[in-house]
């Protein structure tokens, strides 16, 4: 059993390649209980691939990833069991369109955790209330706005009582005016002590609740540090350029 002081996630020298093309190289980091780790970097830098490796949605070729005491790359490991303890939120929400909002939050609770229908419904309604969508329980995802759908997706992940939540660019597909409502939910989660790994370009979020920031470029972690040091004292030229572009896209 993992000890409570052990990191929830530890990645050691993770590497992945397609033929000669290196997607990830030498990626090492730890996520401790209650930490919010933000991964940022230019597109194509491998950050989405890296976060998908953490719950085995993507395989990797080198190194080792241990999540909640389980070695993800080990072929003998029952990944479905581990995955139920790792919540994940996707850029495109990926709610199940044929199920109601409530049905989305209930499905895996019933199938994977074996909760009864009433138990799962109660938990779903509690979480939907928490993300401010209780009155939309009976609707189908297509009837909701993008921001609302993403909040349902967060509730769906939380319903499994995960050890850690992974966010893969959760606000990148949203209209600008809907980003705030999703970030609010995420900030509250962070403040309640949820362990989180977030691939995001929302530097305000990183600065506000991030425990540490990893900056990736070309498949490697180029720079890492607390938000304080990362924003005030950016070391690498690549990260400086990235921050300049993302914070002041018009050069002003």
């Amino acid at each position, binding site marked *: 059993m993992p000890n409570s002081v052990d990191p929830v996630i530890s990645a050691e020298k993770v590497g992945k390649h397609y033929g000669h093309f290196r997607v990830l190289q030498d990626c090492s980091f730890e996520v401790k209980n209650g930490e919010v780790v933000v991964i940022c970097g230019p597109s194509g830098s491998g950050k989405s691939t890296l976060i998908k490796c953490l719950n085995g949605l993507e395989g990797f070729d080198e190194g080792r990833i241990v999540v909640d005491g389980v070695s993800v790359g080990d072929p003998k490991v029952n990944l479905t069991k581990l995955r139920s303890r790792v919540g994940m939120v*996707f850029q495109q929400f990926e709610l199940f369109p044929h199920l109601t909002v409530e049905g989305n939050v209930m499905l895996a609770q019933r199938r994977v955790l074996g909760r009864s229908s009433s138990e799962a419904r109660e938990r779903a309604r509690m979480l939907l209330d928490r993300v401010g969508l209780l009155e939309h329980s009976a609707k189908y995802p297509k009837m909701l706005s993008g921001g609302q759908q993403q909040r349902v997706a967060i509730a769906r992940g939380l319903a499994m009582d995960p050890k850690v939540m992974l966010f893969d660019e959760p606000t990148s597909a949203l209209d600008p005016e809907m980003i705030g409502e999703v970030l609010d939910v995420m900030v509250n989660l962070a403040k309640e002590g949820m362990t989180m790994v977030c691939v995001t370009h929302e530097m305000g979020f990183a600065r506000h609740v991030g425990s540490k920031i990893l900056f990736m470029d070309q498949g490697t972690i180029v720079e890492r540090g607390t938000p304080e040091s990362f924003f005030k004292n950016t070391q690498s030229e690549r990260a400086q350029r990235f921050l300049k572009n993302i914070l002041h896209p018009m050069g002003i």
Partner: protein
Amino acid sequence: MTMWSWSAFFEYLFSPFLLYGAWTTIWLTVVSALLGLMLGGVVAAARMSGIGWLEKVAFFYVWLMRGTPLLVQLVIIYTGLPQIGIKFEVVTCALLGLALNEAAYLSEIIRGAVQSVGIGQRNAATALGLTKFQAMRDVILPQATRVMLPMLGNSVNGLLKTTSLTSAISMEELLRRTNLLIQERFLTLELFIVASIYYLVMTSAWSLVQNWLERRFGRGFEEEARLENAEQR
């Protein structure tokens, strides 16, 4: 000889002999559609199994059944196979031919529909800890069903009419019984019109069932459909 006999037309419009033929057509369609759907599901699963030889076997099957006429397949089963000692009843031959042929077409429809559900949905199901089987049953198939229903419906509509080919191996369905009457009474036009009306009633009834099914599996997509319609206007 008169040009057109209304009395003969009405005499046969509700003839028990033809009605029974129509009933045979209906159950032939239903049973071979269900068998074809089950076998088609198996073939589709085999083609997407990721197991090399199994995929090749399934591909060969679809290629063979879609590349030869159903009439030829029926005749081979009914009159060809006895030559090597394999003999079935007429009904069995008809069902076998129809179901085997239908399965090949349906497997392609099923495969296309399953593949139309994006990788994102699979990832979401996987990330929640659902097994492959659960993801298929609870997430992929309900969505694929919505996509494939219109095509499945058309296929059944086609099958309803295709059953008439089994008359060639003396299966007593609607067309065969119509032909038998014509040989007796020479009321060619009247009887074929009656048979056509029967087929029309059957295909129309099926359309109603199909519409109901499509609505039933379209839940959660009404908004999308409404928006698409609005855009087209």
